[in-house]
């Protein structure tokens, strides 16, 4: 079963621009997580936002969570070519169950 679904599927921007990726999910969550995957590599955890949080920052990353709309967004500011990767949202279906991942957004940052 799929919990999160990212939008858009692919995004291409110029270096220096901001990139926004969205995630919608189906069931109530206690946390939502964002991951990054470079081509042919494993996933790297970026940010975990809990259900009682609305916004969280880490460097150039900003994540928002709207539990009423069952949606989250990941903003990367002042993008760099090195930000080129796939980005996934994930959340547990309930409690301490394993994460369920969306299909990801492929971000291309053009220098």
């Amino acid at each position, binding site marked *: 079963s799929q919990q999160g679904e990212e939008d858009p599927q692919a995004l291409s921007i110029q270096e220096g621009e901001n990139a926004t990726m969205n995630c919608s999910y189906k069931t109530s969550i206690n*946390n939502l997580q964002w991951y990054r995957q470079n081509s*042919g590599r*494993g*996933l790297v*955890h970026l940010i975990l936002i809990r259900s009682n949080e609305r916004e969280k920052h880490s460097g150039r990353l900003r994540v928002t969570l709207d539990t009423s709309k069952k949606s989250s967004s990941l903003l990367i500011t002042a993008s760099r070519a090195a930000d080129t990767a796939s980005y*996934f949202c994930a959340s547990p279906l309930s409690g*301490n169950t*394993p994460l369920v991942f969306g299909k990801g957004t492929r971000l291309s940052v053009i220098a």
Partner: protein
Amino acid sequence: SQTIHQWPATLVQPVGSPLSLECTVEGTSNPNLYWYRQAAGRGLQLLFYSVGIGQISSEVPQNLSASRPQDRQFILSSKKLLLSDSGFYLCAWSPGTQNQPQHFGDGTRLSIL
């Protein structure tokens, strides 16, 4: 600090051959362990997870199996590989409490010929 090792990085196997992929975690005790498969350009499909030695939960019925012979060792196996088993296999671990991130290995690219 904790590290996760997954090997081999790439593997080419004929149809019908057996499979054994190994994953080990260092620097933590009693982790939750996971095996995922990722088809090209797709999301992650959870195959198996384990919350303790000998405890395996299977998410997708198929010809793959998993075992956890030691606390920090997770093995993915098959007796006879199918063409459809091709893909990118990822091992991950997380602490055994809620609201924790998962940490991934570098993956194994499996090609079945």
